[in-house]
């Protein structure tokens, strides 16, 4: 398969229409909340930084890496965005990237965009944020675990949605739970290690060369963890 044919996100026609609707119904309120919160207070310093980070994550997502077994994975970047920009900034950045990937490059189906937003722009940033908060007292683990868990749980959610689609549609859509959940979880447990390594590497690098960037995301505890 060549890169031009790659569709790395959920395509149209894979999930049951009810599940597709569910994706939009859950994702949109979270995105609206993120926009509302950012509207209330955007730090001037964050504007170009957020834009460059978003653009950087866009190109990083194009670079799949091999994980063995004839499979590849790519960075999602949710943990990195949350660490550097905070939860709402992370949600906005991932949303923008996914919309451009779908509308301009055909990566992910248009009807399935709600599900892709739910998994990668809502669940992944929320998981990252939760792990970072939870591991405040175990800071050296916070960054890699947040990155790993964000990809693993977003993929697990995708596996559950595939299973739900299969059940609702009587097998017309999705994949049976006994296959979809272990397969998605298994592959992405490995892919997520790549996410953890890349995210930790970038955060450590930034903490050395431009530690003020970590302050912008108001995640001082993360900066302390890696410096």
């Amino acid at each position: 398969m060549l890169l031009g044919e790659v569709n790395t996100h959920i395509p149209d026609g894979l999930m049951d229409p009810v599940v597709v609707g569910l994706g939009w119904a859950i994702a949109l309120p979270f995105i609206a909340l993120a926009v509302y919160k950012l509207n209330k207070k955007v730090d001037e310093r964050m504007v170009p930084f957020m834009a460059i980070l978003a653009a950087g994550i866009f190109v990083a997502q194009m670079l799949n890496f091999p994980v063995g077994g004839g499979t590849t994975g790519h960075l999602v970047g949710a943990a990195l965005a949350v660490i550097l920009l905070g939860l709402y900034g992370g949600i906005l950045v991932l949303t923008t990237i996914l919309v451009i990937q779908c509308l301009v490059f055909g990566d992910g189906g248009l009807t399935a965009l709600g599900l892709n937003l739910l998994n990668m722009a809502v669940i992944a940033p929320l998981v990252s944020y939760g792990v970072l908060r939870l591991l405040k007292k175990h800071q050296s683990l916070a960054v890699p675990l947040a990155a790993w868990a964000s990809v693993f749980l977003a993929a697990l959610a995708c596996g559950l949605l595939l299973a739900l689609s299969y059940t609702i549609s009587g097998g017309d859509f999705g994949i049976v739970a006994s296959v979809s959940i272990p397969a998605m979880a298994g592959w992405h447990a490995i892919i997520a290690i790549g996410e953890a390594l890349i995210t930790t590497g970038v955060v450590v690098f930034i903490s050395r060369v431009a530690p003020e960037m970590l302050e912008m995301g108001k995640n001082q505890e993360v900066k302390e963890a890696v410096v």
Partner: protein
Amino acid sequence: MNWKSYGKATAVILVLFAIGLVGYFAFSAAFPDGLEKVMEDNHVEEAEQVWTAPLSYGENWAGALIAGLIGFALTFLLVFLYLKGMRSRQKA
């Protein structure tokens, strides 16, 4: 950070991307990602897509580089202009 620093950061990201694409085409381009693998293993055919996008990610290094540059610029502009507009409304 000032604009010079942002310019440097942009240059570094794009150079790393150009180099990363070499590795991508050498080691990954022929293989599916996690979701595609699960679909392939379960013989799930991809249905016709509702929306036909104007661009693709490119089928070779140069094409992918151009796609990446376009995506980088579009993402940067969209986020930058949106946040600038938001910031202007806050000041007003």
